[in-house]
């Protein structure tokens, strides 16, 4: 099991499972390909025929409306046939194993699986299992990776900041449970970003975070100081009170992004969020809707980036 599972014999993208170990050249190619697809969304007929006749199965073992919808739109703009399956509600509840489900769907001549699963590593398991000719795109596996989100975040940063070489990026909140944080960290370090910081209480920062090439901050003001990019993470409802945090209120007080805290970053810093946002928990409405927010452009770019990934793995 190596990251090379993601690459074909010629070094092209075979599956997209994680941004970790993904060559810089591939990440750059995805971003460049996405450039071409951004304009497709602006056309009157928002379609290109690249995946005509191909079947894309959206396999969501974990609920998601937003991510599934953007994948669906991306696939449809590439002219693919899209089949959406919310497996959480069907096979697994009947006791069918993950790989049995995959085999059954593969027998329906699937060309691509877009997979979301609550277990870290599920997409790797599927990618190892499928026969040649079927591509796997990870749409989020447990706490591990959400590579298309990471890549669309890179696209967004590149769009506003042009280069990664002098940037300071702060990732704030529940890093422990966040696949988005991990995908962003690996993509940023691969693209040469010299200063990646994670900010949060000790209970929400993984044990060896620093070993991923980031600096760890528990004080929000210091963590945001002089930053070019602030990426806020979603705090899951079930984490808001319990052994990890006393309350959503106290979390907002310490780590919620407000104008006062954002003032520590550079004046032209951009604010990002993978969505869906908890206003008043991790981010103040004034900031979410403010001039530095690029949260909605992230969503738009997300479709282009997912089109790029799908076009590349299907090529």
């Amino acid at each position, binding site marked *: 099991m190596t*990251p090379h599972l993601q690459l074909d014999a010629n070094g092209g993208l075979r599956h997209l499972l994680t941004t970790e170990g993904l060559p810089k050249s591939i990440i750059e190619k995805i971003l460049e390909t996405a450039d071409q697809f951004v304009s497709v969304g602006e056309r009157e007929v928002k379609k290109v025929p690249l995946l005509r006749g191909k079947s894309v199965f959206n396999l969501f073992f974990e609920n998601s409306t937003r991510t599934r919808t953007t994948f669906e739109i991306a696939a449809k703009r590439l002219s693919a046939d899209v089949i959406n399956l919310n497996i959480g509600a069907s096979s697994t509840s009947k006791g069918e194993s993950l790989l049995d489900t995959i085999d059954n769907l593969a027998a329906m001549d699937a060309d691509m699986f877009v997979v979301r699963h609550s*277990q870290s590593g599920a997409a790797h398991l599927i990618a190892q299992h499928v026969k040649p000719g079927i591509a796997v795109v990870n749409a989020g596996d447990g706490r591990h990776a959400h590579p298309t989100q990471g890549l669309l975040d890179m696209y967004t940063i590149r769009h506003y900041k042009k280069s990664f070489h002098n940037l300071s990026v702060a990732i704030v909140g529940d890093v422990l449970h966040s696949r988005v944080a*991990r995908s962003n960290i690996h993509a940023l370090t691969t693209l040469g970003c010299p200063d990646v910081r994670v900010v949060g209480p000790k209970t929400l920062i993984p044990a060896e975070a620093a070993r991923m090439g980031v600096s760890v901050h528990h004080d929000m003001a210091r963590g945001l100081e002089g930053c070019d990019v602030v990426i806020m993470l979603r705090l899951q409802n079930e984490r808001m009170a319990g052994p990890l945090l006393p309350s959503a209120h106290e979390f907002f007080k310490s780590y919620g992004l407000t104008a006062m805290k954002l003032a520590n970053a550079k004046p032209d810093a951009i604010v990002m969020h993978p969505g869906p946002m908890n206003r008043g928990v991790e981010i103040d409405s004034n900031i979410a809707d403010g001039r530095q927010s690029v949260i909605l452009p992230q969503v738009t770019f997300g479709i282009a980036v997912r089109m790029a990934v799908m076009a590349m793995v299907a090529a």
Partner: protein
Amino acid sequence: MKIEIKNGRIIDPASQRDEKATLFIDAGKIAAIDKAPAGFKADKIIDAAGKIVCPGLVDLSARLREPGFEYKATLESELQAAVAGGVTSLVCPPDTDPPLDEPALVEMLIRRAAMLHQSRVYPLGALTLGLKSEKLTEMVELTEAGCVGFFQAEHAITDTNVLYRAMQYAATWGYTVWLRPQDAFLAKDGIAHDGEVATRLGLAGIPATAETVAIGTIVTLMQDTGARVHLARLSSAAGVALVREAKAKKLPLTADVCVHHLLLTDRDIGYFDPQYRFSPPLRGPADRDALSRGVIDGVIDAICSDHTPLDEDEKNVPFGEAASGASGLETLLPLTLKWAEAAGVKVPFALQKIGSDPARLLGIAGGRIEVGAPADVIVFDPTAFRAIAADTLMSQGKNTPWLRRELQGRVIHTLVDGKIVFSA
């Protein structure tokens, strides 16, 4: 049957014998070493030239899966695997279904195993009824039925009063309480060692603190109750340090380590390979090195296989859903030799840690080659390789990180009670 094993290098760690000599076996016992007893005429002569002749291995943990989990493995398959791996005595934990919590179950297991005439089986009784951590089992009855100690397997006792009373009661009779040192709350929902790899892969962590907190509690209760305790499966450097301290205070404490933990670390998980999911989890390189030093300096008394045969489907799932453990009876010897080579330890010492030391810990007769001792003996070729593959493993469990590898150290003959029960 009279057997003569000649030309071999006899290694008996207990007596520090290491020499080329001939072994004479008669009526299930070792009749003589070097010089044939008067009138000895061998029915069978084994030429062990270039091979090592040593006591059969004593494995402190091998799940045989009966009763209750016959779909994973059977007594027949696992005892065959044992002798193929040179294991002539093994301890089986009580985590069967139903658990080994009543004498009739233990008697049946021992009787069934004896009928198969392969490895000797020493069951551990459940420490609490149903392993439910509520009521004590009939320890006296279970001991009379053949149990060599009492264990909770993977089911930690979270109620410290129950643990305290169980230790106190066991101490009344001088029985050994076996405990897996892992705090259930700190390890809850954990999947892998809470280190760099778990951080990177997004796997919920089991911190080393789960082990040290448990050892701290156990040692404190030992001081109060006077119970003798065996810690099953140490995994962390900090855990080894605590055991070292407790032993320095002369507490009746022993400990073992699973051989995989002497060779592997969490880095071997790679990208979610479920064959590397273990309980306790594989930890970092510094932990592995501390475990190795602990074996060398005697803080850890024995190396075991922690044999855990699983159904294929239990590993063919995402890492976090995969069952822990590896099939290990057939790799105990080659992996212990591999560890010895890497750690710069001599072969006799390595054999001591899988032979005479665990035998002494159990208070059983095996684990030595001396005149009059039961002839539980193996002949192995230390240079020959054995391919580890689904079709070469005798165990029904094909789950091992060493699959498709060749390991050095091949068992040629296994004798139990003076009978040849396995030949390669």
